[in-house]
């Protein structure tokens, strides 16, 4: 079983996101450690890509700051190595297909395994094309996390057939970014997914308040928070206490249902 599954053993998991190298390698290490200490069950680390078509302005800007700070794929792996000296929090990468393709799927997955990066979220690698990366990922024990969207409809079984980490439910159409409303059929989507997979179901895209986190945790197995965290970092890059406070509140809201089930 993929190590990511352990993160869900006690109930809904809180999964914050940061962009590697935003604004510097050292800062990223500090943020991930702070998030882990504040109650993150998994941390999602963005490997910047020049043209992140699934990301909204907030995460696009984080990528630009990371490039300005000199981020490269090698430096992302260095960041993970430095994180690993301080915390064993489960990590997944979010990146775009060209990054592992260019690095070499086998070589990329082997590096991930060595640094205990347990999963990959790749928005532009749908089920139809995942077959080219899947052998390298499974041989190295790295989970390829499928994304499911409100438009997936009849495709749910096909999308989740290889899900061994978790399933990433995109809660709204369009790009990443904070939202106040989510797709109307989210409840139905979760119910339909439960029929075809026993993998944990995590919801992302737009979640930013503890109330939202608590509501989502009532139905799903995990809450993914990206843009809200990245925006905090952008507004106050040195305020580790502020980041920890926000992450702690979101983690508590996500975990509030634990033990009730």
């Amino acid at each position, binding site marked *: 079983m993929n190590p990511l599954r352990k993160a869900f053993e006690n109930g809904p998991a809180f999964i914050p996101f940061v962009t590697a190298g935003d604004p510097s390698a050292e800062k990223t290490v500090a943020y991930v450690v702070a998030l882990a200490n504040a109650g993150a069950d998994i941390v999602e680390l963005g490997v910047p890509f020049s043209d992140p078509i699934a990301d909204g302005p907030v995460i696009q800007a984080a990528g630009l700051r990371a490039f300005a700070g000199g981020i490269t794929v090698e430096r992302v792996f260095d960041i993970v190595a430095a994180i690993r000296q301080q915390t064993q929090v489960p990590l997944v990468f979010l990146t775009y297909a060209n990054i592992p393709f260019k690095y070499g799927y086998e070589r990329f997955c082997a590096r991930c395994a060595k640094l205990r990066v347990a999963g990959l979220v790749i928005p532009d690698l749908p089920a139809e*094309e995942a077959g080219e990366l899947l052998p390298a990922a499974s041989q190295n024990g790295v989970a390829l996390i499928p994304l499911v969207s409100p438009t997936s409809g009849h495709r749910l079984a096909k999308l989740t057939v290889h899900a061994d980490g978790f399933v990433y439910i995109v809660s709204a159409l*369009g790009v990443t970014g904070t939202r106040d409303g989510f797709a109307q059929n989210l409840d139905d989507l979760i119910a339909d997914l439960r029929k075809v997979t026993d993998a944990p179901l995590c919801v992302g895209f737009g979640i930013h308040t503890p109330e939202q986190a608590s509501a989502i945790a009532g139905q799903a197995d995990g809450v993914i928070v990206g843009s809200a965290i990245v925006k905090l970092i952008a507004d106050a890059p040195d305020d580790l206490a502020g980041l920890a406070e926000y992450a702690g509140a979101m983690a508590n809201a996500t975990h509030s249902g634990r033990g009730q089930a």
Partner: protein
Amino acid sequence: MTELKDIPETSETRFGDFGGQYVPETLMTELEKLTACFNEAEADPDFQAEFHRLLNEYANRPSLLYFAKRMTEDLGGAKIYLKREDLNHTGAHKINNVLGQVLLARRLGKTRLIAETGAGQHGVATATVAALFGMECEVFMGKEDTERQKLNVYRMELLGAKVTAVTSGQGLLKDAVNAALQDWAARPEDTYYVIGSAMGPAPYPAMVHAFQSVISTEAKQQLQTVEGRLPDAVVACVGGGSNAIGSFAAFIGDPSVRLIGVEAAGQGVDSGKTAATLEKGSAGIFHGMKSIFLQNGDGQIDKVYSISAGLDYPGVGPEHAALQASGRADYVGITDDEAVAAFEYIAKMEGIVAAIESCHAVAYVQKLAPTMRKDQIIICTLSGRGDKDVAQIASYKGVAL
């Protein structure tokens, strides 16, 4: 001589090793519907009849295959025929594909069209057909390109389209495609994305091939009528590659016909300021397709440069990548200076103001024709007319208008 084994194998979504559907899950259901709709339409005589009626009655087809007598005499080699896509309604080949795709959009019940545009020709064609069918239209155009091609921005607005200037990245064609893909993912239910080049996720490259192949289907027949034979070479400019794939399509299975795509080398293939993707690029995954891209060792997409807003794209359609890999087609680069010289040459020699994109192909014909025998024949596609470029070329030449 090309042998038939040089033709890349195709499947539902691939050309050789290239193509595929590398897009977010949100768009996959739309691509499934589009693929089914396109396959149905291809086999539907009513669809084909309506498409060809619009091509003939609205877009002014067939376009002329014109014997460029003075160019032929001046260059002193092969006979040069120009396939005059510049004479189409809206002034470029782009209308062929837009008419086909908008008919599909209507079959799918969509009410809103979006498009990316570089030089503005595809945006103008999409805005035009949106007006023809009374559909809502939004065109995404890089900020830099809106400055270079102000005339086309105004034309699109005149036709009732909303033009959105894209400020991310370099503000060029690539960034306009990013913005259009994002917009499509945000409201896929009512929106149809009219991709203008032979690129993007399947089935787009195959659709654009199908709708643009009218260029070479006509040219083949027209040349047969006047010369009773096939051409020896077909030359067309390549950005994403739509006019080139349309110009090649009917000749891909004719091994005696050389197929040559001409890319924008900008200030030179090795200058670092270039858009010569197939000469300098490597395999990658971007904009929904596996193809050849200008990128760094990490897979970050490079900045590109060309005087031509229609050719400065860091990728190329997957079928071109496959035709290059198989050896069936050759791809060469032409610099800004050479293209501008050809812009002036064809104006003075044949009385044709051709698009700066097309002048990349003309410039290569100027090099190629003298190396060929007088009994040989070149077809060069003039993909568009050059009115939109006059102000920019004047400024490039230091002429104040």
